[in-house]
């Protein structure tokens, strides 16, 4: 610890918190992170598969959109469907996260919503006319999701019970309930045969069109809710500072409960879209872990619904595309998870360069930074 050796020890790299960055600079950095991640995936794929670097992207593109230039749109519809389901779950968790309530339970809330839809479709199918049954399916799934979201919120509001772990555990409880239900209805076969009664109607060319339209409407509605409604404003205040919220007379507990009901309800809609709008059946993997991906969609989209549209599209593109690359080269399909994980890590990491700036000390002597 001699003091002489310290003389030249002046730290070379110095990290400073930035003032706010101009929005286009921030998004420029995020875009760069995405590009870097996508390039990395391309390089890794090229090395693993022996395809040429550019061909990898060709496979990805064709894998996602199919032969769209020849007028075949089925792959495009599927892409749209996958995107809106992920987006819907992202829209659901956004208000909760904005309130700093870590709702990791979108998976379970969507499953329970889907279960409610399935239950109504099976139980009342043929007994009620379709015009009554379909609304019943929709409403019951919304209510079921809301209740599933409300349970952890009650304990959070009353005893400040850690919601991250609570919601996480609720996912597995939901999964087991579905497993139980499927076993009973499927009679041990672990499959429920598709039920057509009470399913959402098909409009237009694709069965996915209605799902896409519903989520598009939801996106606009969520944007308006968060930005222009009084309740949305309360969510922001509670998320920024509970002290301030109390100071201006916001009932924090009420906002927590209300927001989690909303979050659960939108998850319920996602479950309903999957069950009544797509599969017409249900199983443990109906949501397929997208509840977690949705958290990242909401976070990376900065809780802005329109940015979240782009983020879900990006993730679905990478997932489908990377799976296709893996598929056509005898790689395991989990390559897709790795790719998505990689790009998300890039995006999460790049926030550092938006909030902080790294200065080299020697270089800037006398120069105004």
């Amino acid at each position, binding site marked *: 610890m001699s003091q002489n050796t310290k003389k030249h020890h002046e730290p070379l790299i110095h990290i400073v918190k930035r003032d706010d960055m101009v929005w286009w600079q921030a998004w420029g950095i995020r875009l760069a992170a995405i590009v870097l991640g996508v390039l990395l995936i391309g390089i890794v794929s090229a090395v693993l598969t022996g395809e040429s670097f550019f061909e990898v992207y060709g496979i990805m593109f064709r894998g996602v959109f199919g032969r769209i230039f020849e007028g075949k749109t089925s792959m495009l519809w599927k892409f749209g469907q996958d995107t809106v389901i992920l987006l819907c779950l992202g829209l659901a968790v956004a208000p909760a996260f904005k309130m700093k309530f870590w709702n990791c339970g979108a998976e379970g809330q969507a499953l329970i919503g889907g279960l409610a839809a399935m239950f109504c479709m099976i139980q009342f199918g043929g007994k009620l006319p379709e015009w009554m049954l379909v609304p019943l399916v929709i409403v019951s799934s919304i209510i079921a999701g809301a209740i599933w979201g409300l349970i952890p919120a009650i304990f959070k509001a009353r005893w400040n019970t850690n919601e991250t772990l609570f919601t996480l555990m609720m996912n597995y409880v939901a999964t087991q309930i579905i497993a139980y239900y499927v076993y009973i209805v499927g009679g041990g076969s672990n499959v429920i045969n598709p039920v057509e009664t009470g399913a959402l109607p098909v409009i237009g060319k694709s069965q996915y069109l209605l799902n896409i339209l519903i989520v598009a409407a939801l996106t606009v509605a969520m944007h308006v809710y968060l930005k222009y409604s009084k309740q949305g404003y309360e969510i922001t205040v509670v998320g920024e500072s509970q002290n*301030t919220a109390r100071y201006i007379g916001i009932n924090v507990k009420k906002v927590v409960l209300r927001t989690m009901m909303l979050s659960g309800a939108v998850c319920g809609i996602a479950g309903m879209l999957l069950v009544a709008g797509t599969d017409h059946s249900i199983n443990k993997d109906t949501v397929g872990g997208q509840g977690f991906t949705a958290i990242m969609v909401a976070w990376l989209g900065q809780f802005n619904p329109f940015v979240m549209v782009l983020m879900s599209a990006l993730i679905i593109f990478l997932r489908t595309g990377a799976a296709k690359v893996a598929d056509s080269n005898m790689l395991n399909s989990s390559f897709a998870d790795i790719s998505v994980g990689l790009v998300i890590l890039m995006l999460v990491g790049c926030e550092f360069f938006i909030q902080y700036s790294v200065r080299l000390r020697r270089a800037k002597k006398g120069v105004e930074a």
Partner: protein
Amino acid sequence: MANQAAIELKNITKTFGSVVANKNVNLTANRGEILSILGENGSGKTTLMNMISGIYFPDEGEIFIDGQPAVIASPKDAFDYKIGMIHQHFKLVDVFSAAENIILGLKEKEGYNLKAAEARISAICEQYGFELDPKKKIYTMAVSEKQTVEIIKVLYRGADILILDEPTAVLTPQETQKLFAVLRKMRDDGKSIIIITHKLHEVLSLSDRVAVLRKGEYVGTVETAKTNESELTEMMVGKKISLNIERSEPKDPQVRLEVHHVDCTNREGSLVLDDVSFHVNAGEILGVAGIAGSGQRELLEVIAGLQKTDSGAVLYHNPKTGNVDLLQGKTPLQIRELGVRLSFVPEDRLGMGLVGNMDITDNMMLRSYRKGHSAFLERRAPKDLAEHIIDELEVVTPGITTPVRRLSGGNVQKVLVGREIAAAPTVLMAAYPVRGLDINSSYTIYNLLNQQKEKGVAVIFVGEDLDVLLELCDRILVIGGGKVTGIVDGRTATKEQVGLLMTKTEGGAEQ
């Protein structure tokens, strides 16, 4: 030993974003002396000392220790140079014992031995006359005990340059005298002691030399024996000022708010308000004086409906209806629904009064967003109000959409006070509204409070500067250890009288 430079700063500059905290500061502290760093709040004293103790790293300039150039890049480096800092906000781990906190981060030869450490701590206590139980957990301690832990922590490491940041802010006069005695003992041991303060009388009674900072710049160093209060004030504020705060006679004082025998227990279970009774008139400023943490915050929060009471009553005389309403036990929202126009400028501006990440318009809405039956927000009126306040109070901001956390302390306070006054209150409570503000902004705030008073508002002003309290307030309520120790007339009371009342029950409350 004396007059030998222990530490020397040359042309130190430090900026945070666009804020210059220190600019070309030069300073020398000698061995065997007590050096005061004097300056107003926000003059850059703490930032400067943080650079000596390795918390911040200077953008420019050099530090010399014992004449040798030194690089202090981390607190560890500071220890190696035998520099120890006692921060204003104690850096202690709450769930640890005193001894665990003291030996934290050390690499002693005998390994991890709490018993040996406790024995050494007791020896240090004896040497300098401290009282401390090394096994006591920090979260059960009183502030003065925590400070003792901090000082012993530094001594335990063998520091011979000690920096104390506003050490007396949380102490009673008796505790302050005790601390000063200890510091003098250390000086006589040949240690170099730097004490940051803005209290002139402490500077004069304790230090050998005084260095003055103003707005981040170094003004000069003088020997205490050859200076006086007015010269130091002049150095500190730039020109000689007499406070000269206008004070009009209260017009038609009627009781607006009554507090009867209020008891209040905080979350940790200690009694923070003990049988508090007083009243506030319309058209007067009631000052609240007391040592920091004597229950001032809880008192205001009880009135605002943010803190539950154990017993007692808070009564509001409604000038419109003539009714007397009970406020305690109600939420802020219920209080507002009663038609009580209560405005509150809390101590924690960005943590309670405002939302740092929201812009000025959205912060204006905090009070008014509920208006109307629509489910949606109405941003036009808040925007007009924001523009009006920026204009009227000369808020310096890049624009109306700038997040308030990017404004300077004075401007943040103007936004907050402006909003609270815009609500046309009948009761206005302000906790430390000029803390951290420059002289000009402080006067803006005093004038605003006076205007409110003349409009017939009942103003409650919690302050720390006795001179201000005595010149601004009509009556001063003194609070000590959660009890009202006296209510005096602001026009006739003396500083000594108030100071005495502030400490009256301290001794009793400790036991």
